[in-house]
């Protein structure tokens, strides 16, 4: 089930955003033959940080519903013209480290919505968000994102696991 919520008093500043120092630029996973046909390193590459994310990204895990035992965080920058095509996230690494259970992802929007920024999960497009809004979804929820605007599209992910 898709859930939506908001972190009150979000307070992430433009300065904090601009100081994000991404070091990993890679092509998104291609999970279906159709994705392989249309999406390449040229139109589906993103910046992402995991453990090296600044402390304020790690602290986001304290600001979402505490319905989990373990978590990992990351932050993503989708540059203009890039996409994250249809995919599901299985959270293998989290489960490998912390055992089996039910896992979810909180996608947290780090800035107010900007023109051309686009996210959709399970046929539910999501736009016009405010900084601090989040979407929670599971391992079987296909989702996509894209940036046809002129500015980077920043989001954070807190992937959570509730052990069985």
């Amino acid at each position, binding site marked *: 089930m898709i859930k939506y919520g908001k972190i009150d008093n979000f307070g992430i500043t433009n300065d904090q955003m601009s100081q994000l120092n991404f070091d990993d630029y890679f092509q998104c996973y291609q999970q279906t033959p159709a994705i392989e046909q249309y999406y390449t390193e040229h*139109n589906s590459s993103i910046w992402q940080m995991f453990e090296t994310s600044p402390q304020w990204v790690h602290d986001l895990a304290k600001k979402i519903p505490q319905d989990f035992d373990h978590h990992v965080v990351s932050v993503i920058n989708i*540059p203009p*013209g890039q996409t994250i*095509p*249809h995919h599901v996230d299985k959270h293998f690494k989290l489960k490998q480290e912390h055992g089996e259970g039910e896992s979810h992802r909180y996608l947290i929007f780090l800035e107010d919505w900007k023109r051309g920024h686009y996210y959709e999960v399970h046929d539910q497009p999501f*736009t*016009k968000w405010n900084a601090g809004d989040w979407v929670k979804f599971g391992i079987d929820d296909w989702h*996509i994102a894209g940036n046809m605007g*002129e500015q980077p599209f920043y989001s954070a992910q807190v992937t959570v696991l509730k052990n069985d």
Partner: protein
Amino acid sequence: MIKGHVDLSWLDERELYLTKFVEETNTIWSGGYWKDNNMAIPDYPTDGPIVLQTYDEYAPAYAQKIRELFPQIEHSMVTVNCIKPGRFIGPHIDKFFRLNDLAKLNKWDIEGKIPVRVNVFLQDKIMGHFLEIADYTFPEYSKGDYTYILKDQVHCVSNVSNINRYTLQITGYAKTKDIQ
């Protein structure tokens, strides 16, 4: 927002895929949008902002048939657009240059009328097909639904799905009361 609906149940999706497009347009310049707003051109991928188009006498029969469903649009011209997966048209404004030039050249009576572009959806909403007009996004629509794009409205479109995105546009003049 959706402004109306025309019955396109007769239009088979296979016809869309058989459409012959006569132009492949790279929209990187966004019709002057970046320049007009003193903005740097985004570092879009080279083959990203590309739209396939066919229009007017080159447009297929189904396009002409749909155009006739909009008699309120005078001096209308028709275009079929295809945006392939992974491609998009960045933010831009339609300036209706060609339409306005034709109006002057042919001395059309456009008193009390405004240029308008009708955007007709030729497919039901597909996950990853995205249209945004003047900050309005279209979370749901059905084949045959249509909306209007007016002068000065910034809009953009993208296809993050695995399926071609087809729309039809009818461009002409209309009385404001006829396009409410």
